[in-house]
């Protein structure tokens, strides 16, 4: 049995509820750790006897051997994972796939666009941008969510923006009492920001329709397609290009992605059901 096909045992050492159906867990290996993960890669998390789901690394640069994942309760396995408590043991396989690779965009302005829980896979990028702040130009972060309750980690993002001098803008689609910010889609925020398209690189993560719309808008603004990266979501089951379930056209999302640029993506998201 090859190494990345068998789960490593990790103990939950931190657990934080981030809303009614979202939890962030920190885990540490009981024995051998999985290999080092890059921002944008994903792991397969296994709830004993329930099943396994792909989850992007929320944090890869914290203390050595400590991994962080944010999970939304949307099915049987994620329900079990959200229900984990400190001390429980979870299986972790990975890391899998190709990540954001922010280092290739050093020296350029960076635009981060997140929709809903799509902010989580982008956190390792955001952390790297802060750690290597002087290697990048202007930072712009646009965050959209359905409702104010669906916004994750906005306070943390605001602190991050204050430290890095980033232009952070947050909008919700459906406001609730107490919401004083912009109402609309994340693409509406995009219309309002100044960009220097020739020196800007974008990292985009959110629902497929949001990524497709944002991609189109960024191309219309003059960004180069190879400078716009999105993170795809499919039902990865093996992580190693074998099970065939994560195919999107010619892509195996588990290996060719999950992060691809718009040249690699082409029109694959423009046709429903592909």
């Amino acid at each position: 049995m090859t190494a990345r096909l068998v789960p490593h045992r990790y103990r939950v050492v931190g657990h934080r509820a981030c809303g009614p159906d979202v939890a962030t867990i920190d885990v540490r290996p009981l024995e051998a750790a999985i290999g080092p993960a890059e921002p944008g890669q994903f792991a397969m998390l296994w709830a004993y006897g329930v099943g396994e789901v792909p989850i992007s690394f929320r944090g890869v640069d914290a203390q050595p051997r400590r991994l962080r994942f944010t999970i939304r309760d949307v099915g049987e396995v994620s329900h079990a994972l959200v229900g984990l408590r400190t001390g429980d043991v979870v299986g972790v396989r990975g890391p899998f796939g190709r990540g954001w690779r922010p280092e290739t965009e050093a020296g350029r302005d960076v635009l981060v666009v997140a929709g809903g829980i799509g902010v989580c896979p982008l956190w390792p990028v955001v952390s790297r941008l802060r750690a290597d702040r002087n290697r990048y130009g202007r930072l712009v972060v646009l965050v959209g969510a359905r409702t104010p309750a669906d916004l994750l980690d906005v306070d943390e993002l605001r602190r991050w923006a204050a430290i890095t001098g980033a232009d952070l803008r947050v909008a919700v689609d459906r406001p609730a009492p107490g919401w004083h910010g912009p109402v609309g889609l994340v693409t509406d925020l995009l219309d309002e920001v100044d960009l220097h398209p020739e020196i800007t690189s974008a990292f985009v993560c959110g629902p497929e329709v949001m990524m497709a719309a944002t991609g189109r808008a960024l191309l219309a603004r003059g960004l180069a397609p190879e400078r716009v990266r999105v993170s795809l979501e499919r039902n990865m089951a093996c992580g190693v290009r074998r099970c065939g379930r994560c195919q999107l056209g010619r892509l195996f999302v588990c290996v060719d992605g999950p992060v691809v640029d718009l040249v690699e993506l082409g029109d694959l998201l423009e046709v429903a059901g592909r």
Partner: protein
Amino acid sequence: MVRSRHADRPVLLDGLGLEAILGELRRLGHTVYGPTRRGAAIGLGELRSVADLPAGWGDEQAPGRYRLRPRDDGAWFGHAVGADSWRRLLTPPREVLWRARRDGRGFEVVDEPAEPETLALVGVRPCDLAALRIQQRVVAASPEPAPSTPRPFVAVVECGAPAATCFCASTGDGPGVDDDADADLVLTELVDADRHVLVARARSARGAAVLATAPAEPASRDDLDAAVEVVRAAAGAQVRRLPDADACRSIADRPDHPRWADVAQRCLSCGSCTLVCPTCFCVVVADHTDLAGEEAWREARWDTCFSLDHSFIHGGSIRHELLARYRQWLTHKVATWWDQFGTSGCVGCGRCLTWCPAAIDLTEEVAALVADGATTATGGASP
């Protein structure tokens, strides 16, 4: 592959010679598999002797139709491929990946390395040899290739009995094999009123060693010509063809072609085509536990892209429409497979035509899809 001097000297094997080959393969520790009659079809099973071959049985195949037909010549290999394919032996339909035991609040993975069987595959058709090669490429393309298992001994039998559903001549995968085919033995059956023999050529050192143990006589020029003629006639007898690779690949750029909606009206989404296909490789990875919850194990099970589960992510299936599932299967098989593995996923074996309960003909669908996209498809085949 090492070619022995023996490899250059084709011989003739009769029934006793073939029996000797099977015996020698068993003596070497191989479990020998080959075509055998299973009920009303020819499948693949263990060959304990030549008597297990479906001698005197041929088949009649058409889209959505398979019937055994007795032959009056007693041919051992006088049939086209059945539903069964060699991938059942090489990547079993259900395979346990690992087991784990509950351990307090956690679990412990139990490592149980399985003893791999050393297989000898006798009677592999050229189309299926191509499929074996494609499956090897699929495995090799993974960043975590499966643990290496002993390479099976492969005895190809060139095809002299294509069915009406066969189109390997158009895909370049049959009905004969090239000189560089990755096989240990290549056999061609010659059967007429006077004799029943196999022209046998070794293609590897171990093939030559096995062949050397069998009683045989040298094949004459006429025998070799007769073998060539068997293959030539089989190619000429094929009535279907797949458009060329460039045309096939173009269907990936035609997701809106009206033919997709047309075929989706006929397709039952049963997944038969994917299960009989010798190159399909999708699996579902499923976790199981015993009733007490003390043991859990993970299984890989053959999957089909026609299931809703195949593309399920939270909230629903990406390919919830049948049109999208059929489009995925066919586009992957003949178009995006090229991008992924540098080869087509279709070897022209015709199984997906024969075993489609709706009699959908892959060659006809591809032909319609590569035709002008503006042309509205007609009704298509009916059973």
